[in-house]
């Protein structure tokens, strides 16, 4: 042991240092997030899938436009087409959100983390906030890039959209907001279920499997389910065309946020009460 230290056993030693803060926890979680490779790969996947898949689908759809029927032309949504890569790209965000807490459980790191920060709500809040901000930045960049790339490929073959068109700017920017809600939900799911595989399965079920099952239901069941299904309702914020039996953009997003808040509250409570 180099550098002898002063024995501090009296009651006054606490005056020698400042209490740990939420800001400290944020810095710590940022270091955690940037120091594992899965973060880099998941965010790269989000950007590449969002832009490249969107561009591919935009180009293909635009070339097919001439052969569309009249009703198909009527429902032509160049904004939605350019954003269609996000449907897949969001999975990378959900997986990363789940992993950034459940990998701590699978490795045992959570015990080290909770010894360092025994105020458990602080760990969860800092983790969610850092990941939400990163997701928002990456999400907005991807959505706008996909929009411009898509419109460039569409123009000349089919009617294209501009940011000034009604609802378009809100729909494109809404992609980043939708991803924030999804990011926070994934962190909560990871904290709640603790096992990476279980939490990823739950997120995929929520995003794809259960909505697909709902499609098989009779109309009277299907319509309210798809209308209020959290991720479907939330994604209304990213739509320009509001189809029948769907919520308006902001009320839809509010439904998703409410769902996220409920899951988050449960995760918070259980994290605080369970033995780690």
């Amino acid at each position: 042991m180099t550098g002898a230290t002063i024995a501090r056993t009296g009651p006054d030693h606490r005056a020698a240092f400042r209490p740990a803060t939420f800001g400290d926890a944020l810095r710590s979680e940022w270091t955690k997030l940037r120091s594992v490779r899965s973060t880099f790969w998941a965010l790269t996947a989000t950007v590449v899938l969002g832009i490249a898949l969107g561009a591919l689908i935009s180009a293909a759809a635009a070339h097919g436009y001439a052969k569309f029927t009249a009703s198909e032309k009527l429902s032509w949504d160049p904004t939605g087409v350019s954003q269609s890569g996000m449907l897949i790209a969001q999975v990378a965000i959900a997986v990363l959100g789940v992993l950034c807490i459940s990998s701590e459980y699978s490795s045992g790191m959570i015990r080290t983390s909770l010894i360092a920060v025994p105020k458990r709500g602080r760990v969860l809040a800092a983790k969610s906030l850092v990941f939400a901000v990163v997701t928002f930045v990456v999400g907005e960049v991807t959505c706008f890039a996909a929009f411009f790339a898509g419109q460039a490929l569409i123009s000349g073959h089919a009617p294209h959209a501009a940011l000034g068109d009604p609802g378009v700017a809100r729909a494109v920017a809404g992609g980043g907001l939708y991803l924030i809600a999804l990011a926070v939900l994934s962190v909560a799911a990871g904290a709640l279920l603790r096992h990476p595989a279980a939490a990823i399965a739950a997120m995929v079920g929520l995003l794809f499997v259960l909505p697909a099952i709902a499609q098989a239901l009779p109309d009277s069941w299907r319509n309210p389910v798809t209308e209020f299904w959290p991720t479907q309702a939330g994604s209304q914020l990213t739509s320009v065309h509001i189809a029948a039996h769907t919520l308006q953009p902001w009320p839809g997003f509010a439904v998703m946020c409410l769902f996220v808040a409920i899951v988050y509250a449960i995760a918070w409570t259980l994290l605080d009460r369970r033995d780690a």
Partner: protein
Amino acid sequence: MIEAHGLVKRYGATTAVNDLSFSIRPGLVTGFLGPNGAGKTTTMRMILGLDAPTQGSVTVDGRSYRDLPAPMREVGALLDAKAVHGGRRARDHLLCLAQSNGIGRSRVDEVLRTVGLESVARRRAKGLSLGMSQRLGIASALLGDPAVLIFDEPVNGLDPDGIHWVRTLMRALAAEGRTVLISSHLMSEMALTADHLLVIGKGRLIADTSVDEFVRSSSQQSVHVRSPQAAELASRCREAGAIVPAGTAPDHSDVIEITGMDSAEVGKLAAAHGIVLFELIPVRASLEEAFMELTRDSVEYQAAGGTR
């Protein structure tokens, strides 16, 4: 100072820790000793706020762990050296822990130097050997320069050099006036490192004593004697109040083991009765045997038909 009052932890029908009370004082290395499954780790988890006690309470310097304003500056802990994210570099691992308690970057490099891991600071944790992981865990415990240190089996996986290093470090930390608690299931290790012992078995406190006291009180002494008049000596010793087991093997009929008398007394007794002695050897039970004797009834998993 760590103080536990009537600590109980039950998992369903299993009682892992049963009415444990102790106080661990500064300036000493306290060895927390017990067979596997005795409840050592569970107790440490309760001290560190990871598990909530079913009953009772435990405090560090008068506060429950979860109420400490800057935990790493008050308590440094290593529970499981492998409890790190394998994909994170050693230095980043320490950095994220330091930041969570507002500890500066320079301290990270300092503890890396202290534990001798500078050369692997940029290696990912899964590429570290168990010995290096132990050192990384010890480094994380030292980050906040805390007055209380808790280590669960810190020498696991270390080579003899590393074990010597840990031993010296623990003693140095205690000499600086810190409270040091180390768990182990190896009595021999504790005899070399600890000043004070807390011995538990099946979740109960068996002994709370200094190492010296423990050795004196529990190591059974016996005297090994070889004599052509072994049978006569045995009966003389029994008359004097000593215990001499009868059943020694026929081909060693001249050898007896006497307990309850020391070698000087046996020698005098033999001389007084004109008994010839070929060998007179005091035999001291090892600490390991003393420990096994003490915890015999409280071992969780015992081999059938054990040799003890």
